[in-house]
């Protein structure tokens, strides 16, 4: 059986719409305005293809023409003519009706660090700074293991209420924060960073974020006021060790 061209057209348009909507069902929706744009191109493309030959164009438009030409289709015509203006009106209404969604706040999650960091009465050059304890991993593994454990103690006395027992950002207070705390599990946070960056973020917290590309709205405390330099380095060893992540190193 041959599928009528008009039905083919409708099915293809629906499939295109489904493809654009599909990411939304898995939690990463494409914004509505983008979908509108994609759909415009999709419809134009489908029309172009389907009208590429005289014959297929005719097949596509005949049933539409028949609506007005064929007196036996008067009833169908009346229904279609009534429904289309209503659909149009509804689409327009959805566009103009006032929206009361909270403003979207886009944030850069990996800000550019400053070149130097002042903390603990010292100046650190973030471009060259390394975790002074990292080298012990090779030089003295037993001592290193001990430092990691001490870092864990720092973590579980200071960080875990927000960043989580499992370092998965689901600490018992996490849901009260907006934006949510970041996880250390996975490959897209600390795995992408040098330890100097992490040291800077911990030391100066939310208020230490650069003034550009705001808003940050970060609730991260200024840890240099609450922890020692060594405690911060140890906590950094711990969060990499526990999650199996490796800090990025300076390319030599």
């Amino acid at each position, binding site marked *: 059986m041959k599928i009528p061209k008009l039905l083919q057209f409708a099915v293809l348009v629906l499939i295109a719409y489904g493809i654009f909507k599909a990411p939304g069902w898995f939690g990463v929706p494409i914004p509505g305005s983008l979908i509108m744009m994609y759909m415009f191109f999709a419809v134009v493309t489908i029309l172009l293809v389907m009208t590429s030959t005289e014959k297929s164009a005719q097949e596509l438009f005949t049933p539409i023409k028949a609506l*007005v*030409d064929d007196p036996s289709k008067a009833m169908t*015509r009346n229904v279609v*003519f009534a429904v*289309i*203006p*209503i659909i*149009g*009106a*509804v689409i*327009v*209404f959805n566009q*103009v*009706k*006032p929206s*009361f*969604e*909270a*403003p979207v*706040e886009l944030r850069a999650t990996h800000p550019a660090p400053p070149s130097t960091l002042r903390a603990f009465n010292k100046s650190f050059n973030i471009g060259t700074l390394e975790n002074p304890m990292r080298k012990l991993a090779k030089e003295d593994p037993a001592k290193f293991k001990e430092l990691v454990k001490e870092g*864990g*103690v720092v*973590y*579980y*006395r200071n960080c*875990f*209420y927000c960043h*989580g*027992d*499992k370092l*998965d950002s*689901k*600490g*018992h*207070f996490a*849901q*009260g*924060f*907006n934006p949510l705390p970041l996880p250390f599990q996975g490959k897209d946070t600390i795995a992408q960073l040098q330890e100097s960056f992490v040291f800077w973020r911990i030391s100066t917290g*939310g*208020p230490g974020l650069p003034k550009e590309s*705001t*808003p940050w*709205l970060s*609730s991260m*405390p*200024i840890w240099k*006021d609450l922890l020692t330099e060594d405690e911060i380095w140890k906590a950094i060893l711990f969060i990499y060790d526990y999650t199996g992540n490796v800090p990025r190193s300076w390319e030599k």
Partner: protein
Amino acid sequence: MRKRAILLAIMLAAAPGLALAGGDAAKGKEIYEKRCWWCHGAKGAGDGPAAEFLNPPPRDFTSGVYKWKSTPFDEIIPTDEDFVKMVKGDINHNNIAGWNGMNGTSMPGWGDMLGTQDVNDVIAFIKSLAELGAPQKPAISISGAVSSSKESLERGQKVFKDRCTECHGEEGRGDGTKKLKDDLGFRTWPRNLTKPFTFRVSNKAKDIYTRITVGIPGTQMPSFADPSSQKKLTDEERWDVANYVASIEAPYKKPTESTVINALRVEGEVPDKHDDPAWEKAKYTSFYMVPQLIAAERHFTPSLDTISVKAVYNDKEVAMLVAWDDRTKSLPGNAKAIEIADGDVFEDAVAVQWPVTIPQESEKPYFGMGDAMLPVNIWYWKSESGAGQPQSFKLLNSKGIKDREERDPASVGLKYSAAYDKGTWRVVMKRPIKTGDASKDIQFEEGKFIPVAFAAWDGSNKEKGSKHEMTTWCWILMQPPTGSSVYVWPIIVGCIILGAELAWLKSTRGRKKTGE
């Protein structure tokens, strides 16, 4: 670790009997020393480095007492299934998105990190800490379930009023009259039964029935199935109470994804008091609160968890109703308040924070009392500081925790009223939409998203000054009535399409007539 778990999983799949064969305590110890000791302590005594920051405290495994079990009151050992739920997490706990651990505690579900055999190994190890064997008695039966009918709820309510209100409060908000401690001497607070998302297990009737029947070992929640107890209830009565408790949930108290308080425009006066019928149409938006753990003296063991807010306005004024459950009315110097409090009694309080200038861009003031560039207004109410003393209400202009100016609320027409009733504070704050001075006070505007943040203090939980609970920035929107203009464009477009259709129809008719 993970590789081993996968390997084990493959082995287990090949030999299905093995999963039930129990765990290996030595392997469990290894996992425990990597994952668990931080809270539960090196020797399992509930005294890990994190313990002092946690309320409720982590379980002491050396005691062998477990709270969330389904074996009868005279069987101390939980079932294997109980243990698995405790360690692995349970989908029924899932009241907060992405969290299947025990609600209201820091115990997460470990099922995503530990495989079945890992969990069994850990269970074998923690059981060994108190030399627990297998339970001698099976889990209690839930086969006698009474369905939740009107009659069952009525019977349940009656039993509740008789047996439960002493601790759980008349309305079940946990505002009882009795100070509670667990066997280890830790302060415990009765569950607020209107907030099921804080239940450790779930608010399904069968789980509530289990708690009532088994009790919560180590706490003052007794078994109501114990024949030697004066409080004993029949099986049917326990199901009735379970049904009743499941029914008193107040869904609005559970925060949703929405961060917007929709202020409703009202005809006539904006209400002064919380019991004014003008509030009825406005809806609460609820927010999680977290203790202040950022600056100055920090707080880790909150007793308040959420705050609910609604707002109304007219041409001249805006009012907000701030409501939060607090188990204790904290009256400093009052014998009854002192008796039930944990430590010294301070005032209860609430604060509402606004940016002085509504941000044009997305840049808001620092959420902890503003910053030097972007100051905030704080409306700060405090309960009576002693018997016969007045409540206090202040207007603060703040540029950070160290830089604040105290002003007279009356100078800008800012008013309040507050009432405590059966475990809930309700505070109304009301101010003219505009004041004389835009450089010092927020000037409210219809149709704009205005940042707002909240803080609250429970004076019976050692909360004072910088020790309090708080939200981050939320939004309030004075939502203008939609009006008829939004219907104009759709109607015009509809008419244009219809006109085009008719024109088309007419043109074909014309064509036919001319014989084309």
